[in-house]
């Protein structure tokens, strides 16, 4: 994909180790923003954004409502809120019902991003134990965006990427070690 306007990465159990592997090799001058939606326990936001920001020169931010999404920033969806995107590329947070037993839900952010960034959106689904994100990838696909999944054989919990591959047949299946350079090439 050329001219990527946003990358959303979703993951659950086993996805943190992959993020920690990708982050050090991301280009400093990435021309699009990255939004991270991972399932985790409530109240651990601070730890996660600290941990991730120690691994990259990009700016890691805990997502705030009304914040405008900009290139070279990485936004982390806060625990216990869904993250949606408005037409002016600002962030909306939503404390409505859990989706797929999850809040934040990957489906919610994938779907919202698909409507906004359309065919200039890339979404990557990592290791995890439920199918959150799969419906979202369908919508990304329908809008002409790029759908990506971690190679399930490399995932500590393969269910989530497996479901993505079997239900929608993603555009590319990536090994953890090739993810950073692939992301860097989306510019």
């Amino acid at each position, binding site marked *: 994909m050329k001219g990527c306007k946003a990358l959303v990465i979703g993951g659950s159990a086993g996805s943190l180790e992959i993020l920690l592997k990708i982050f050090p090799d991301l280009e400093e001058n990435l021309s699009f923003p990255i939004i991270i939606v991972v399932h985790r326990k409530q109240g651990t936001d601070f730890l996660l954004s600290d941990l991730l920001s120690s691994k990259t020169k990009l700016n890691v931010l805990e997502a*705030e*409502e*009304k914040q405008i999404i900009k290139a070279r920033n990485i936004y982390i969806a*806060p625990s*216990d*809120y*869904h993250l*949606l*995107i*408005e*037409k002016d590329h600002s962030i*909306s*947070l*939503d*404390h*409505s*019902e859990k989706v797929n037993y999850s809040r934040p839900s990957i489906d*919610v952010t994938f*779907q*919202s991003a*698909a*409507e906004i960034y*359309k065919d200039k959106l890339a979404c990557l689904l990592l290791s995890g134990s439920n199918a959150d994100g799969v419906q979202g990838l369908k*919508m990304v696909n*329908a*809008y002409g965006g790029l759908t990506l999944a971690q190679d399930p054989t490399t995932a500590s919990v393969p269910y989530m990427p497996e479901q993505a591959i079997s239900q929608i047949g993603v555009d590319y299946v990536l090994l953890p070690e090739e993810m950073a350079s692939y992301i860097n090439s989306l510019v």
Partner: protein
Amino acid sequence: MPHQTAIQDDEIEILLNDVLERYGYDFTGYSRASLKRRIIRLYGIDKYVSFTEFRYIIANDSSYFKRFVEQITVNVTEMFRDPSFYKTLRSEVLPKFGTYPFIRVWLAGCSTGEEAFSIAILLRELNLLHKSLIYATDINPLVLEKAAQGMFPLSQMKQYSENYIASGGITDFSSYYSANYSLAKFNDELKAKIIFSTHNLVSDRSFNEFQLILCRNVLIYFDRALQYNVLQLFDNSLEKLGYLALGTKETMDFSPIAKKYKRLEAGKIWRKISEGL
């Protein structure tokens, strides 16, 4: 570009205009991404197949309109949700009211009432309940009917009890309710100090002066202009040295009233330190 969603953006605007003209409920200041998702969700749950029909029913069936309001607003709540917030209320905020002859609390956006009963429990444990009144308001009459019953699913009590203990609770949580089949009915002593009433933050005015206003996880659904207005409404309704509590991801920092307030060290709680101009 194919149409991917059941309802298009311009159709959302048509609905909002209908609802404003027909019922006087103004949702046009709500953040669109979340609102649109809620509307599409309702359309799906109620198995509509055409926007025209959906629009017609909303505009012409006032009982369905109640359901519309209930479903597009978010009513997810818990007792003692964010225990650390309640801990701060218990240890730093409410004790300040000890010498006051009368304590008025406004809980704006109370939904099904779990927070209102939580605050009543705190006040009781601090020996303040007898001189307190909690005004618990919501835009949505259906949730207020539930709230006024003071009954919550018994299955939730384990979680609520854990929250209560984490918030610094000092007695046996189960002493506050009696089990009634699958429901926990909270003591009338608590309920007697709560007034449930409809209030629309968008269009209704200030109705009293309070020492404490809580409005958590409501402003996140509003656009900046509406957030400004609502914070102004709270400011008009808050006594000097009163407290305003917002949700974990909410702030007043951007608003003109911020200069009259000082934020507490812990949590999203501000104290009104000057009356300003």
